[in-house]
């Protein structure tokens, strides 16, 4: 029989405000096995922990129930307290009477009733607890960064600088990401390429970093410290180690009309291409959907002109099996599709463009070599209308936009408007906005300069409609402050499209068993206190995959994620989780169901000899769990029909005892 102590926490008024803590500790005192019950203002404080340690000694307690906040908050604290008192740490159970009770109830009577029930369930479980001892697992001292934008680059550089090997997997032929497509960066207006490309070169030159470009993560198995990752290196039909990046093939390729994704389709590239001059790795890639040789076997020009002999039309996708101790997700963002925003005539007129397209239009390496010419007739536009929040903060139009603020648009639009007025003072620039949001160091000053020094016309109000008419775009908008309708004949309309997580993020989250929010942004372990860790151990978040961010914020978070990874990789061993599954061999049918549902590959089968009750020996097929690989998810225990598989610390009998205590 256990001797259980119950400790009810007030959490100041967090719990005591809606739960009668005295009534809870009084009620639980009468539960089977309970020999001591008390309550205190802050159980997690040193004084509170001392009460527990004292009670263990005075009452010879064998088990502890703490009625307090979520185990996510303080389970570790109270386990340490128990250890300090000489108890096995796994003899502690937490009844969550805060998040799941006091915070969701309004009146004292129902809050108290529920707190007592939750406490009874925890007592019922502790009665069946057994001491557990964790094992240790080694750490593979190599990190994987998924995504080679500025977030992934910064994280990889920081990890590599600490002396650990890092691999970057980038699905495009080059690293660089969205930042490589930008022209200038706010609020200092330095050229994006000038500050990004040195970092890209650093990555290429760093001995600790390997770049798998034009590659995708295919499968992830394992757990913190020991991930097994399959990486698909897509066939680029060019031998990466031989190609010198001279670019001769890209000049001679006869297929000229392939939309250039780097310039967002505003000009063309060849079927064999290098995305941009500073690409890393600077290696050509053949687009198999466009290449005549690959489609019909007729051409071979690139192979003929390549002096290095790097072209290989027979190249196949390659699957690499790699091991990692930590994984950083840096999958970034994309602007949303404008297909559902017919009112802005994006699909009707070439002169309605998104802000990212505008970046390419003003970039010296862009389709107009940096001259501001509108796409339809390559004439200089004199009246330009910027529309803010296209698809952002769109609570009422959730089916086409996003509810959240995309955060970066106010600043880059101020930048665009300012740059136009600076280079082309004869141009009228209007910005239509809901609010202008410019928190950040030197951000509001930057926006004020656009309005006050550069004469950008900021109008609070939304554009209702854009109608192409002749060579003009008729813009109908409302000015909410003046309270009137505006009609502007614009030459160019720029839409600040909302941003969303890259489409590769969701399948990746599934492979990682990392959680996401409803918008497919990765969820942090704690929104304030653990912002760069995923709730899945060993998985870290860098950049816009976690939420909309500008470059300064992305880089800070990227370095923070790197710090967390380094903190993990310096360890030689990790303490395992003793709450793992194990099979009762006498009851195991050998049916393989558990093996099939195990997401970690922790279960194998062996043929084992058993002495049967009638003194015969029988060979039976039985399940074996590798405790170093098992993560204690419990999938096998619910799949096992005969109940042969059970989870230490969460045994079926313990769960049923909890349910019984609740239903009593």
């Amino acid at each position: 029989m256990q001797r259980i102590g119950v400790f009810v926490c007030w959490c100041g008024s967090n719990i005591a405000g809606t739960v009668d803590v005295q009534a809870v500790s009084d009620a639980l005192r009468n539960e089977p096995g309970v020999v001591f019950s008390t309550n205190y203002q802050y159980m997690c404080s040193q004084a509170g922990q001392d009460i527990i340690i004292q009670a263990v000694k005075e009452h010879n307690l064998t088990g502890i129930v703490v009625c307090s906040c979520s185990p996510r908050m303080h389970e570790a604290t109270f386990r340490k307290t128990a250890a300090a008192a000489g108890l096995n740490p796994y003899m502690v159970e937490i009844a969550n009477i805060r998040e799941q009770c006091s915070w969701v109830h309004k009146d004292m009577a129902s809050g108290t009733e529920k707190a007592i029930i939750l406490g009874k369930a925890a007592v019922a479980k502790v009665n069946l607890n057994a001491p557990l001892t964790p094992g240790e697992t080694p750490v593979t001292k190599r990190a994987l960064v998924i995504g080679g934008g500025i977030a992934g680059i910064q994280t990889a550089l920081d990890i590599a600088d600490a002396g650990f090997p890092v691999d970057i997997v980038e699905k495009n032929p080059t690293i660089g990401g969205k930042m490589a497509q930008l022209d200038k960066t706010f609020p200092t207006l330095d050229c994006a390429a000038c500050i990004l490309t040195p970092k890209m070169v650093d990555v290429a030159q760093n001995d600790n970093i390997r770049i798998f470009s034009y590659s995708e993560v295919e499968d992830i198995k394992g757990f913190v410290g020991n991930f097994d990752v399959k990486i698909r290196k897509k066939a680029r039909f060019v031998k990466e180690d031989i190609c010198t990046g001279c670019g001769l093939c890209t000049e001679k390729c006869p297929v000229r009309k392939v939309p250039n994704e780097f310039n967002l389709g505003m000009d063309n590239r060849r079927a064999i291409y290098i995305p941009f001059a500073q690409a890393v790795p600077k290696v050509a890639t053949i687009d198999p959907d466009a290449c005549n040789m690959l489609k019909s076997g007729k051409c071979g020009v690139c192979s003929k002109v390549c002096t290095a002999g790097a072209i290989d039309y027979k190249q196949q996708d390659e699957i690499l099996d790699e091991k990692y101790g930590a994984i950083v997700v840096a999958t970034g963002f994309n602007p949303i599709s404008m297909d559902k925003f017919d009112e802005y005539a994006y699909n009707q007129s070439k002169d309605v463009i998104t802000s990212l397209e505008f970046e390419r239009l003003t970039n010296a390496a862009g389709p107009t070599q940096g001259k501001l010419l509108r796409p339809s007739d390559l004439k200089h536009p004199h009246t330009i209308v910027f529309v803010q929040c296209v698809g952002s903060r769109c609570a009422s139009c959730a089916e086409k936009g996003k509810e959240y603020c995309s955060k970066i648009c106010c600043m880059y639009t101020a930048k665009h408007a300012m740059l136009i007025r600076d280079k082309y003072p004869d141009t009228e620039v209007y910005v239509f906005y809901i609010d202008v949001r410019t928190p950040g160091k030197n951000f509001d000053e930057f926006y004020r300069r656009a309005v006050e020094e550069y004469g950008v016309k900021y109008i609070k109000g939304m554009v209702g409609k854009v109608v192409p008419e002749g060579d003009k775009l008729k813009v109908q908008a409302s000015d909410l402050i003046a309270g009137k309708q505006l009609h502007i004949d614009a030459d160019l309309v720029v839409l600040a499209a909302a941003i969303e997580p890259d489409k590769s993020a969701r399948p990746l989250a599934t492979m990682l068993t990392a959680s996401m929010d409803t918008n497919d942004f990765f969820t942090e372990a704690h929104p304030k206190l653990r912002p760069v860790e995923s709730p899945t151990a060993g998985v870290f978040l860098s950049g816009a995959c976690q939420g909309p961010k500008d470059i300064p914020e992305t880089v800070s978070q990227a370095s923070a994620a790197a710090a967390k990874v380094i903190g993990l990789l310096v360890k030689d061993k990790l303490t395992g989780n003793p709450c793992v599954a194990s099979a009762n061999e006498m009851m195991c049918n050998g049916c393989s169901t558990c093996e099939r549902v195990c997401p970690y590959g922790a279960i194998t089968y062996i043929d084992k000899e058993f002495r049967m009750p009638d003194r015969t020996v029988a060979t039976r097929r039985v399940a074996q769990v590798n405790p170093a690989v098992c993560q204690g998810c419990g999938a096998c225990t619910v799949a096992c029909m005969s109940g042969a598989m059970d989870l230490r610390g969460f045994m079926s009998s313990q769960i049923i005892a909890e349910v019984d205590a609740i239903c009593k």
Partner: protein
Amino acid sequence: MQKINRDVLIDRAISLLNSGQVSSVLGWRQGEFFYDVTPAVFTDENDIRENFVWNDFCGANFSKYLVSKTKASDGKILVFLKPCDTYSFNQLLTEHRFDREKVYVIGIPCEGMVDTGKLKAQVGDGLVSAQSTEEGLLVTTLYSDEPVNVDIKSVLAERCINCKSKKHVAYDELLGDEGQIEDSDRFDEVARIEAMSPDERFAFWQGELSRCIRCNACRDVCPACTCEKCVFDNPVSGVENKAPVNSFEEKMFHIIRAFHVAGRCTDCGECSRVCPQNIPLHLLNRKFIKDINGFYGEYQAGECVGSRAPLVDYNLEDLEASDVFEGRDTQ
């Protein structure tokens, strides 16, 4: 009338037995009454000649018996499997429940088996004999002077009227012609129950399951129920002591059993055949099969050995739990 004659089966059984290829034969033997045909192990030629039964009353599915019989026997076992039995056979192999090498399977075609309850309802109690004819059965009873002609279709078991397949999915040797997977209406009754209001449905199952006497026949006959130790026999399982407590508990028993066989049940219908209280237990399993087909695409347990049932498999395209909860399906 069955297409293959009893003599053909007996000849093959005796020749395999005498040649030493098999050491025993799993077949049917008459029980207390002629319609009460039970599974039996034969090892003797004369016993087979005299007592081996093959007629319209041989409903029993032998697959499950192989689990214990292959362990008890050193030699090969000859087993006769009807098409629907072969699905259970494959499912058991998928779950590694016996050694395939120790079994010799003869597939036999099946024209459907008689539901004795339906026969008694038609001709009354006191069945003495039934002669198979081209059209049906010629039945004599204690209480009638003349034999009664019965249309076979009117007395076929429900699972045979809604036969899902006349194709053998496993055999070493086939007697007669191979059949086809049938187009059956087996989910119509499930759909009718689904259309009920929750209260009606509860009342329906209350009415059916309250007749349960917990004889365990459904579990004992079920080819999916081959655990080393059943949870209902296991004092530490936490459900064993609950079963007989109150009137809701037999629902628990059947619902737990339906969950345990979900995705593994081949819809052989043995549970309903053996139920002495005539509870349509197969409907619980069919509801699962219908849902699995709807949520994850058509899946027939036991169609091939080693197939991954949707409930123990995962694809990125799988429905989210919330979709299932809201009754959405992709099919």
